[in-house]
């Protein structure tokens, strides 16, 4: 059964109020506690290791929720999920992890998602991370997403981590085949002594494969962020990487992108900027009556939207 705390965490990471619509699997403190398959969307626990297999049949449409919550301290949860979106299917998948660490021990969730978007399929994938806890216990989240987009497939990834997570290393690997399209939005806000690393590698394999990566982050306090987005065109693909960071206080931000074209028809663009909030932006909003703090807040929340 879900406690009130569980429900709050689920609301934060998956916008869930009560039981999810469609197929779902809820994992709590290292164990699957609730699950529902539907016709054409089968969710089964893995036999040999922790995690689930999600298999979506050809042409199927629907929504799948597979949230993970941690409510104990000194818990290290590791999970392997295998997700297969059949040809021509159209799926919205909401993953994400919420941690409430009540103690002073470390609570850690490492998740590996292996996702296949088959020919002509379409996937909207959302992964939100959230952590809280009254005491000093560390909240650690290390998600790894391995994605294959087959011919003509489309995947849109929204990866969000706003506050709370003390340490994260997020790895995203994608292979985009001919005619496939990948869109990835990353949003990160860190503060205090937090640290966040994001390593992304996208391989554009064939004709007309495209990728667009938009990463926005705000680093506050003493936090440290590091980004390493890599975009490789092995064929005539097109890609655009855009990394924007607002740096505040004593934070540090490092961005090491890579674009590598191995084909003369490839078009790769990278843009990165690290800087503070522009003075004119603050003045503009203050001239509408906002205080400096309200203006800063409005700018940051827009930036991370």
């Amino acid at each position, binding site marked *: 059964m879900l406690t009130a705390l569980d429900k709050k965490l689920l609301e934060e990471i998956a916008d869930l109020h009560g039981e999810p619509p469609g197929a779902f699997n809820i994992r709590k403190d290292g164990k699957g506690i609730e699950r529902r398959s539907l016709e054409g969307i089968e969710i089964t626990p893995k036999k040999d290791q922790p995690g689930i297999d999600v298999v979506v049949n050809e042409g199927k449409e629907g929504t799948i929720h597979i949230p993970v919550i941690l409510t104990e301290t000194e818990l290290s949860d590791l999970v392997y999920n295998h997700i297969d979106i059949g040809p021509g299917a159209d799926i919205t998948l909401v993953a994400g992890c919420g941690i409430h660490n009540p103690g002073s021990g470390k609570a850690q969730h490492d998740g590996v998602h292996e996702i296949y978007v088959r020919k002509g399929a379409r996937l909207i994938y959302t992964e939100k991370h959230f952590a809280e806890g009254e005491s000093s216990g560390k909240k650690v989240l290390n998600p790894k997403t391995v994605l294959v987009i087959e011919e003509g497939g489309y995947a849109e990834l929204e990866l969000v981590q706003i506050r709370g997570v003390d340490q994260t290393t997020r790895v995203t690997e994608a292979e985009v085949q001919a005619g496939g399209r990948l869109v990835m939005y990353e949003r990160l806000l860190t503060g205090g002594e937090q640290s966040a690393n994001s390593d992304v590698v996208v391989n554009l394999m064939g004709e007309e494969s495209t990728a667009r990566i938009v990463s926005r982050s705000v680093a506050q306090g003493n936090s440290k962020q590091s980004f390493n987005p890599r975009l490789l065109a092995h064929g005539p693909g097109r890609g655009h990487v855009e990394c924007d960071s607002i740096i505040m206080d004593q934070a540090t931000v490092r961005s090491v992108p890579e674009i590598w074209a191995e084909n003369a028809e490839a078009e790769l663009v990278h843009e990165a900027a690290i800087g503070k909030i522009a003075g004119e*932006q603050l*003045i*503009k909003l*203050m*001239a*509408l009556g906002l205080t400096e703090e309200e203006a800063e807040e409005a*700018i940051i929340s*827009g930036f991370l*939207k």
Partner: protein
Amino acid sequence: MLVLENIHLELETGEKKVPILNDVNLEFEAGKMYALTGPNGSGKSSVARVAMGIYRQTKGRVLFDGEEISELGISERARKGIGYGFQHPPRFKGMPVKDMLELAMKYSDNVNCQVLRDIGLCPDEYLERTLDNSLSGGEIKRIEIATLLAQNPRVRIFDEPEAGIDLWSFEQLINVIGSSHREDTTTVVISHQEKILNMVDEIILVEDGTVSMRGSREEIWPRIKESAECSCRYSCQLGGEIYADCPR
């Protein structure tokens, strides 16, 4: 309504102080429309920025409704009813036009609506657009004017609203500034445009950081006509040898 009294302004650029305004005295009355005109760099925008509290005068006083507001910050002046439409509005990554308009109405008593439509932008198309580089300079500028219209402050200062605005929109701009002006409103437009100078009650000529003349269009226009045109047409010669034996 708004009074600038004996305003002097120096700004720091690098290590030295540069004098910008020198003894500017201006009174803006409710219900009236004013144009601030004059050559580029004469100090017109600085006058507006001192009124808004963005620049703090080195000497002099700013009064609003008879009360001195010299020590008030930008936000406080805005909440009292002074508004300023930027000449070069900043862009905001990720912020939709809708949010900007909502912020403009947040601390305002008599908010205006339909402002996008008034300025010739289709709300259905623009409300969700973000104020970043995906919008052209002209669009950003029109949205800036719409923001000031939405805020609808008692003192409205438009800083070169026509800049970057195309032909179609310019007519709408003139119309909307005129039709949104009210009895209790002071409208100040910084402009070189003859059509704008034609619509105001009083023209203020700013030259070399001070007010050199106040008066009607008939008095002022002859004095500024020349500087309002592109001086280049008269002074420049074509460079480069390739043009040497051109017929003209």
